[in-house]
C-alpha cells in the first residue's frame, strides 16, 4: 500500500482557548479527520473535533456485571456444588455471606476494564507515532497546544490546508512526516 509521505499538517497554539477556537473553526470548515493535543484535559475539546461516543462507561458496566457474576457463581459452585462442606450447620448456599466477595469482584473487574478499556480504545501503548516527528511537539506535554489535520482527510490538500491553518493565527505551522 502506498502511503502518503505526509501524515498531516500541524498548527501550534499558545493557549487552550486558541486551540478550542481553532478546532471549532476547522471542524466547521468541513475537516473531519483532525485531532487536537493539549497538556491537560480541556472540557469540550473532544466534541469540537467531532468525538461524540465514549465507549468507556459501557465497557465498565459490562466489566462490573461479569465481575459480579464471576464472584457469586464462583462461591456458589465451590461451596455448594464442587465440594460442599458443612460449616457450623450453615446452608451450603449461604448467599448473605457471599455478598461481600461478589461486591469486591464487581469493583475489581469494573476497575480493570476501565483501565484496559481506556488503553485499548485509545490504541495505547503506542511508543511510536508520527506526531512525535515534529520537534516542537515535545511542548505538547508542557505548555503548548496543537491541532492537526490528517492527510487522509477528504478535504486535505497540502497548500490549501496549510493556508487555512495559517489563517487561524497559530504560533507556527509544520508538516508531519509519516
Amino acid at each position, binding site marked *: 500500500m502506498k502511503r502518503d509521505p505526509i501524515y498531516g499538517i500541524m498548527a501550534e497554539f499558545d493557549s487552550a482557548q486558541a486551540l478550542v477556537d481553532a478546532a471549532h473553526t476547522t471542524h466547521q470548515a468541513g475537516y473531519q479527520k483532525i485531532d487536537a493535543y493539549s497538556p491537560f484535559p480541556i472540557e469540550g475539546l473532544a466534541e469540537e473535533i467531532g468525538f461524540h461516543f465514549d465507549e468507556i462507561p459501557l465497557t465498565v458496566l459490562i466489566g462490573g456485571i461479569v465481575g459480579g457474576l464471576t464472584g457469586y457463581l464462583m462461591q456458589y459452585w465451590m461451596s455448594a456444588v464442587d465440594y460442599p462442606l458443612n460449616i457450623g450447620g450453615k446452608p451450603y448456599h449461604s448467599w448473605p455471606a457471599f455478598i461481600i466477595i461478589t461486591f469486591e469482584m464487581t469493583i475489581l473487574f469494573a476497575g*480493570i476494564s476501565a483501565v484496559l478499556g481506556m488503553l485499548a480504545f485509545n490504541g495505547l501503548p503506542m511508543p511510536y507515532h508520527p506526531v*512525535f516527528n515534529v520537534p516542537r511537539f515535545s511542548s505538547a506535554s508542557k505548555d503548548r497546544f496543537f491541532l492537526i489535520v490528517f492527510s487522509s482527510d477528504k478535504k486535505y490538500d497540502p497548500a490549501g490546508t496549510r493556508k487555512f491553518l495559517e489563517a487561524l493565527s497559530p504560533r507556527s505551522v509544520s508538516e508531519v512526516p509519516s
Partner: protein
Amino acid sequence: MCCREFQRSFGPQNARQDDKTEIKMADEYKSTMAAVDRAPVIEPGHTFGTVTEKISAIVLTRPASNGWFVGFGIAFMLTMMLLYAIGYLVLKGTGIWGVTIPIGWGFAIVNFVWWIGIGHAGTLISAILLLLRQSWRNSINRFAEAMTLFAVACAGIFPAVHVGRPWLAYWFFPIPNTMGVWPQFRSPLMWDVFAVSTYATISALFWFVGLIPDLATLRDRTENPILKIAYGMLSLGWRGSARHWHRYETMYLLLAGLATPLVLSVHTVVSFDFAVGIVPGWHTTIFPPYFVAGAIYSGFAMVLMLAIPIRKIYGLEDFITDRHLQNSAKVMLATGLIVGYGYMIEAFMGWYGGDRYDAFTLWNRLHGPYAIPYYMLLICNIFIPQVLWIKKLRTSPVALFFISGVILVGMWLERFIIVVVSLQRDFLTSSWGMYYPTRWDWMTYIGTIGMFLMLMFLFLRILPAISIFEMRTLLPEAEVKE
C-alpha cells in the same frame, strides 16, 4: 478580582431572570465569599511552564542531596532488618513472636490493621475528594496515592507471614490444589483477602493511570537518552490527544466512583474480622463506621507527616499551601471526633448492655494490666488532637507534624487495645494470659516502617510527587469558554 466577581454577581442585572441564573448567582456569591478567607490552592504567578518545570526538576535535574542518601540509607537498613526478621520467622515459625494462647493475634494483626488504615487517606484524597470536586486535592493526591500503595504493601506482609507457613499463603485464594478443597467463603477472613487484594490492585491501577500523562511530560523533558526510553515506555506513548483525554477523564471518574465504595468496604471488612467473632470487645455493630473513620484519621496524620517535610525540603510551599494543611487538619478533627464517639459508645454499651462479659471487658480496659496503654490511647486520639480547634496550631506546620505523630501512635495503640486486651482475659480465668512482644515482633514492625520510608524516598526521586497535569488545570489560563 473578588470584588469584580462580586459586582458581576450583584450589580445591575436584566429584569428577565429565570431560576437558573439565580442559582448560579448564589453559587458565585458563595464561592466568592469562600475565597475571601481561604488561602489559595496554588500561589499566584505560576504558568503551565513553571508548574511543569518546578515539579519535574525534582526528578530530572536536582541532584540527590546528602540528606536524601542518609534518610534512604537508614530506611534501607531497616528494610534489611525486616527481611532478616522474616527470614528467621520462616526458619523457626511464629514461636519467635510473643503470640500465645489466649492471645493468638498479636503484633501481626495490630500492624496489619494500622497500615491498611493509613492507606485509606490516599484513596479518600484521590477518589472521594475528586468526586466532591475539591480541587485542592490535586497537589497532594499523587503522593497520597503512593502512600496508600506502600502502606498496603506493608500491611500485606503481616497476614502473609503470620499464617505460620507463608509458602502456603496462596491457599488464601481459590486456586485449585491437590486437596481439592476450596476456601471457606463464609469466613470474614476470606472476605478480607478479597477486599484487601482488590484494594491493592485498584490503588495500583489508579496511581499508575494518574501517572501516565506526567510520565509523558518527563519523557519530553529529560535529556538523558536512557531515561527518555524508560519514561517513554512507561508513559505508553501518551500524546495528549483530545479523544484520549476524553476517554481518560471518563475512566478516571469511573475509577474514582468505584474506589469510593471500595475504600469504605475495605476497613468495614477488616472490622468484620473482629465484629463477626463472639469475643467481648469485638462483637459490636459500631465497628465498621468507627474503623473507617479511624482509618481516615490515621491516614491524614500520615499524609501530613509526609507532606510537611516534603514541601519544606523541595520548596513546594507554592503547591502544598497552608490551605492544604488546614483542610487536612479539619478532616483529622472531624474523623477524630467520630472515633471518640466510637469509644464512648463502646464504653456505654459495656456498661448499659447488661452483658457481664462486655462489662468485664470495659472494666479490664480501665483497670486491667493494659490500663496504661488505654489511657495513653485516649490522650493521643481524643484529648491532644482537640488543640486543632485553635486556628494558629492548625496552620502551623511544626505543630501539625507533632500532633500527627501523636495521632499515629494513638491509632496504633487503639488496634493494640482491640486485639490484645479483648483476648488476654478469656471467658475462664484458667485461660488468662499476658502478651509480651518479642524483639522479632518489634523488628518486623519497625522494619515495615523502614520499608515504607524507603519506597517513599525512591518515589520522590523517580516519579513526580505532585500531579503535574492536574496542577495545570488549576491555573486560570486553563479555563476555556465555548
